């Protein structure tokens, strides 16, 4: 029943996409399309949410449609895991559709966006619903393809075509890896249904290979280092609400793929998988945030932060694998809850932030922070919501980002119970990486918010910006509220995750709902507890009371005057700190290693009127290490082989002749 409803929603989305092809030229197309996707995703969200809260609605047996592989059919099934990710997907989808109602009006090429947006949503829903290998991969690649089309929407802008190219290539690489993984899982006879795959028990080395392939496949879509290169190119290239979906939701679908394979289909893991995954996660987190710190393009900065958060999620997943391998279900449940809760949270605040970036983009036409500033005066609401998002993604209490990272830390602190020494030593190190990335993220968002919204406008467009439309604001408000709610009432969300972890790890966190004062206690009261509500009320109360008291009894006089600035203020906005100068200390500390950062100052001689220039050169070490050689190799081989195009007929005949003789010799030898 529930599955049918969800599939009807998907069908509605697909129909909308097809209709959009016809309608696209009309003025009203934008409203029609987003007006259609909004209810569809809201219904899907409602159904999935209901199924998550009331497990009675989940269905054990898959629904089989006579599509896809003929003798197999397309299997669809809704279990707790799928329900949770459907909530994530459709929440993002609903928000994006709401945002699109307003944002879409500024779209310069609606005909290239409207048809693919619903298709993209449908693809993501199908990936999560699929219950056999073929349908899964079909939907997976369909999702990539439709998002590629959206990335190519503004194909005339420099670099977007290249971004789309790298994106689709990496996506297909991921799909290939997954195809191979499922090839191993389903065996030569082709038992593609997930039920059959579960029943089959692959050997140790085989399952290790499968996990590696799944990590490659899902990881390349989720953007784990070093497979992340496409992400900061492709996500910003798309229209902002699509960027929000790609960053906030599609990467989560990739995480779903990994979870599905590693926890559900693959049976009991080996402990060192956990070590590997967690370590990769930690490295990904730090690399992502460091890249983000060096970025001055607002949307690319956000995209790099997606890489960071994916790293955090994979840390949780790795821990869960390690705990599960050592038969510690409770701990595994904790780690898994942390990871999944972070999935949810990140989908919230990343969408929120991209919406904010989109609003800035429409208001100013600028993505380069160095040309923004002072927007808090012109777009106060957007600024406020963006601030909430920044605080949430920087894992600051009382917002939701902190709760999931706190849970991750709690899971890390359970590591001493692990028997393997490697894990004992590795996990705290990973914890250090996590802490480092959290702190750097805070720095990064001080920069992002401060340079974009605070200070004085650095360009005319920033000075004349106007507040964005009400649909965009509504959708941002929705997400901001959710960020706060998930931060101060985490108990309810954690309880909602219980059936998921129960299904995957065989255990779930203790019931949080009826604990007094809505405290969350992952393991035991004596071990750790956190109460977002109280913290929030404390801060609100003490800040409010303090302010009230001071205004009441002390002075409340206020006078506006020019900034003091140690006595020599300069009206020129260029004297402010820029994004580059803000991140300079951190670049000095980390950049020399990670980016081979080189700074050179061209100081003109005294009396020369030319301004002094500071050049900063950063290099993407990973690109130089992995991708450039690969491209070089392909080009080299192509060059070598290409000579065959220019031989004489006689030479071609020689080829034929030698092939014949060779085969004859083989035959003679074989007999």
């Amino acid at each position, binding site marked *: 029943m529930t599955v049918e409803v969800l599939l009807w929603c998907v069908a509605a989305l697909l129909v909308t996409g097809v209709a959009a092809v016809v309608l696209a030229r009309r003025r009203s197309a934008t409203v029609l399309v987003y007006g259609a996707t909004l209810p569809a995703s809201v219904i899907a969200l409602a159904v999935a949410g209901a199924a998550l809260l009331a497990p009675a609605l989940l269905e054990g047996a898959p629904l089989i449609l006579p599509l896809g592989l003929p003798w197999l059919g397309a299997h669809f099934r809704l279990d707790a895991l799928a329900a949770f990710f459907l909530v994530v997907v459709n929440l993002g989808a609903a928000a994006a559709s709401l945002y699109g109602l307003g944002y879409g009006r500024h779209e310069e090429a609606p005909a290239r966006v409207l048809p693919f947006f619903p298709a993209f949503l449908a693809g993501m829903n199908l990936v999560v619903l699929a219950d056999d290998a073929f349908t899964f991969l079909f939907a997976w690649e369909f999702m990539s393809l439709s998002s590629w089309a959206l990335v190519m929407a503004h194909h005339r802008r420099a670099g977007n075509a290249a971004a789309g190219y790298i994106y689709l290539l990496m996506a297909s690489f991921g799909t290939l890896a997954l195809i191979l993984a499922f090839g191993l899982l389903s065996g030569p006879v082709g038992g593609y249904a997930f039920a059959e795959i579960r029943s089959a028990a692959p050997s140790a080395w085989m399952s290790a290979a499968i996990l590696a392939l799944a990590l490659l496949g899902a990881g390349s879509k989720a953007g784990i280092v070093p497979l992340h290169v496409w992400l900061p190119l492709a996500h910003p290239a798309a229209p902002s609400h699509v960027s929000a979906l790609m960053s906030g939701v599609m990467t989560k679908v990739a995480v779903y793929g990994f979870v599905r394979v590693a926890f559900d289909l693959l049976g009991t893991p080996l402990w060192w998988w956990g070590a590997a995954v967690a370590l990769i996660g930690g490295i990904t987190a730090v690399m992502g945030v460091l890249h983000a710190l060096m970025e001055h393009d607002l949307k690319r900065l956000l995209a790099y932060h997606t890489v960071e958060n994916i790293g955090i999620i994979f840390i949780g997943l790795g821990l869960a694998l390690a705990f599960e391998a050592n038969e510690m279900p409770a701990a595994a449940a904790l780690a898994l809850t942390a990871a999944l809760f972070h999935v949810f949270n990140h989908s919230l605040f990343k969408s929120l932030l991209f919406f904010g970036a989109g609003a800035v983009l429409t208001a100013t036409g600028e993505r380069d922070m160095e040309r923004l500033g002072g927007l808090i005066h012109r777009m106060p609401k957007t600024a406020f919501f963006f601030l909430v998002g920044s605080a949430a993604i920087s894992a600051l209490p009382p917002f939701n980002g902190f709760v999931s990272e706190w849970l991750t830390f709690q899971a890390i602190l359970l590591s001493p119970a692990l028997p393997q020494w490697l894990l004992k030593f590795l996990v705290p190190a990973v914890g250090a990486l996590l802490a480092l990335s959290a702190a750097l993220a805070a720095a990064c968002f*001080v920069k992002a918010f401060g340079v974009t919204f605070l200070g004085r406008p650095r360009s005319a467009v920033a000075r004349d910006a106007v507040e964005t439309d009400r649909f965009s604001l509504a959708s941002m408000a929705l997400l901001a509220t959710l960020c706060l709610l998930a931060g101060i009432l985490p108990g309810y969300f954690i309880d909602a995750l219980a059936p998921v972890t129960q299904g995957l790890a065989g255990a779930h966190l203790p019931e949080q709902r009826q604990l007094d004062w809505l405290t969350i206690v992952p393991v035991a009261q004596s071990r750790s507890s956190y*109460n977002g509500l109280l913290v929030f009320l404390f*801060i609100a109360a*003490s*800040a409010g009371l303090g302010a009230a008291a001071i205004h009441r009894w002390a002075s409340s006089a206020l006078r506006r005057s020019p900034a003091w600035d*140690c006595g020599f203020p300069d009206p020129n*906005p260029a004297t402010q700190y820029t994004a580059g100068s803000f991140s300079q200390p*951190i670049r000095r500390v980390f950049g020399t290693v990670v980016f081979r950062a080189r700074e050179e100052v061209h100081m003109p001689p005294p009396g020369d009127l030319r301004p002094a220039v500071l050049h900063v050169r950063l290099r993407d070490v990973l690109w130089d290490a992995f991708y450039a050689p690969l491209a070089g190799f392909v080009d080299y081989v192509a060059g070598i082989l290409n000579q065959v195009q220019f031989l004489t007929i006689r030479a071609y005949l020689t080829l034929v002749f030698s092939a014949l003789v060779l085969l004859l010799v083989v035959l003679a030898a074989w007999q």
Partner: protein
Amino acid sequence: MAIAVDLGVQFLQMMLVLALAPLLTGYVRRVKAHLVRRQGPPLLQPYRDLLRLLRKEVVLAESASWLFRVAPYLVFAATWVAAALVPTFATGLLFSYAADVIAIVALLGSARFMLALAGLDVGTSFGGIGASREMMIASLAEPAMLMVVFTLSLMAGSTQLSFIAASMQAPEVGLRVSLALALVALIMVAIAENGRIPVDNPATHLELTMVHEAMILEYSGRHLAVIELASYVKLLLYVSVIGCVFFPWGLAPSGEGAIAYLGGIAVYLLKLAAGGFALAVFETAIAKMRVFRYSDFLGAALMLGLLATLLLFVSRVT
């Protein structure tokens, strides 16, 4: 009834923290002055400063936004709440379950976040310098702090300061290499976070060297007062954390009557005095370092913290 008492004790602690914070700062200043053979300001000078600032009008830069005016109160609130959650004279207070030590670190992070934003808000170069350097310091100090937290909570099997303190009192803890390392790391972090010498000089107004001062350069009047108070509270917080974790004696368990609490307060005052004196001595003994040496200093703290965590396992098996 019991709730009421607990509430009362909790409230008492919060007020105590608030009341003692300026005193501690004043005490440190005075000791420092004495150490360099100066008269030094009277002990209660910080209170006077605060009151004077509170009475003055606020001079607000034209380019300042609403955030600039809200930030001080939020910074103060976050810091105060964090401080209220640290066991000072008694463990297991009512709200100590609301947040563990990780949350406390994060709350300080929130305060820093707001402060750095405020530094950028007016759009002056000095505010930028302050914010950027502060975040750079924090980006190393916070992980170091968390490593220390790891060490302690792995040892105590809990991230609740009350429980950590309690388990530290247990006899089997004894002296540990990792504890020593953690203590050193924590002290280094505390120095950095409170902007003390050698990382930052609270007394300086030489623009290019200041960090914390640069961020709050544009503040005046009540805003400045609130921010100053917040920084006093922060210093007090770190001293109390060190006190209650590494010198956990004399902490009154919850629900022990007034006498025990009074005893706890007395011991707590002693700890503060000792900590303040040590800080003053340290600050007079050492010179401030260049800005770009910070990373080495804090990196060392981070490594110490990590080392402490890892050594923990070694010392466990031995």
